[in-house]
């Protein structure tokens, strides 16, 4: 466990030095701050649009940071031959992979927290300038935190996907595959009902198998519901978080299995 924490700490410190996530966080913060300037174009819908923009920025930039950092977690060290020095230390390959994952997730949580604070700062400003309307969600609606928690969970799954690909492929290919899986994960529901549109039972069975095998990311997206003030059940949140933990664990195990078998000579 101690080795995992040490590796996680090293990954976190290295990520902090990387300028790419800084740029993305600054861009996201700037976007949120500037979003109140669009009020002239929204016909009174500033608050809704700022919430949509803020949550979308959190989701999109969180995902991009996860992919950009995740794809190089293992492959970068293999390319630079640093991996030999790491493996010579008293640390197992499993501890190395899990430590790297934990470090990157910690980095993402910090980045997303900074973006969330900026988001709520903009909303706090808006709450002074826009009077509250009965029946409409408040500017500082705490229910948005539910959407943000699910965004963090989704990003954690994407990080696991990126790490998985990073254990055996180049950074570019890892990025393309991770992005592809992210898109597929959001259209997963179509596979579930594939049997209704095809005649072949075997194709329908394959589609259903793929539905359960590929990451199902659509349930993580509750942005529309929180912005419109619609209720989100605790059951949905708990099951979705549990799914994220289980799926990420499967990917981590697969990453460990692949990494163990790799011969770096």
């Amino acid at each position, binding site marked *: 466990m101690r080795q995992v924490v040490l590796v996680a700490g090293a990954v976190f410190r290295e990520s902090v030095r990387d300028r790419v996530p800084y740029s993305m966080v600054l861009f996201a913060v700037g976007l949120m701050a500037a979003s109140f300037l669009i009020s002239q174009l*929204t016909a009174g819908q500033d608050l809704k649009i700022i919430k*949509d923009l803020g949550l979308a920025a959190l989701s999109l930039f969180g995902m991009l940071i996860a992919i950009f950092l995740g794809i190089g977690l293992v492959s970068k060290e293999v390319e630079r031959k640093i991996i030999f020095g790491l493996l010579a230390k008293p640390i197992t390959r499993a501890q190395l992979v899990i430590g790297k994952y934990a470090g990157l997730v910690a980095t993402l949580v910090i980045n997303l927290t900074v973006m969330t604070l900026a988001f709520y700062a903009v909303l706090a400003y808006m709450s002074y300038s826009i009077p509250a309307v009965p029946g409409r969600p408040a500017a500082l609606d705490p229910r948005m935190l539910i959407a943000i928690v699910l965004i963090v969970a989704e990003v954690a799954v994407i990080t696991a996907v990126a790490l998985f690909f990073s254990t055996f492929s180049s950074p570019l290919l890892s990025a393309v595959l991770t992005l592809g899986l992210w898109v597929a994960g959001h259209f997963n529901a179509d596979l579930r009902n594939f049997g209704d549109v095809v005649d072949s039972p075997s194709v329908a069975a394959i589609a259903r198998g793929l539905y359960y095998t590929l990451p199902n990311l659509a349930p993580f997206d509750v942005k529309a519901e929180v912005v419109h003030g619609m209720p989100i059940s605790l059951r949905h949140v708990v099951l979705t978080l549990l799914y994220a933990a289980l799926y990420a664990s499967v990917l981590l195990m697969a990453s460990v299995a692949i990494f163990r078998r790799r011969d770096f000579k």
Partner: protein
Amino acid sequence: MPLVAAMALLLTAAVAVQVVRDRGWVPYQPPNPLLWVQSGPLMQRLSVSYANLASDVYWMRAVIYYGGVRRSESSAKTYEGLYPLLDLVTTLDPHFTVAYRFGAIFLTEAYPQGPGRPDQAIQLLERAIERDGGRWDYYYDIGFVYYWWLHDYQKAAEWFLKGAERPNAATWLKPLAATTLATGGQRDTSRQLWTELLKSDMDYVHGQAEFRLKQLDAMDTISKLTPVLQRFISREHRLPQSWQELAASEHLPQIPLDPSGVPFVFDSNVGRIDVSRQSTLWPLPIDAQTPAGMPQ
């Protein structure tokens, strides 16, 4: 320092070139916006999990488009792109209430100032009922379109009644349905409808209600001035040459102004009093109490 100076000089030169270029060049604006993607379901797919944000972008486009066309100086304004834009907005975000309600208001604005398409407004609102849980507001809005723009008081009352049966419906909807059936087209009923909308928390709807109530006030004033004008015509067998002549002849306290502060005008073709074309209240809607033209 020389590098910074060179950068400042080059940037200044670039700005100067742009100023000179912009003097003789106007970017081409197609008469209608080109919508590369018109299918809502396709746009939903393309936007992945950012459909709400895409909906907001299209909403801003719709607002800019409507405002741009409305404020243009062209005499033949077309709003062909408005409904497709609103369709995209509401497909991407089916709970975007304001897009349905404001969109319907935009679509019903009388031609030539607006699109003059109450049919599309009803279509949009029916879609709202289907997609957004059937809020009573949407039924009320459909009834309103039938009442105000299509003068179909039977249909208006039917929709008000349907709205009255929805959860959390306003308590005045049922009596309104009854009033509409009994006195549809009467100005008092119209005033009641707009007064209810004046309570809306949506700025645009509130603004529209204020505007329409001013129009109704102008119509009331015209109804009071019409007998005055009729007396003059009966006596002098001609239209007055000016408001001053009529005011002096009929002992009016002052030249009548409409609620926007612009003097009323005589329509010499039909011998009728109306608001000036320069008035923000022009054109006035027609109702059952609007006086017909006078014989000259």
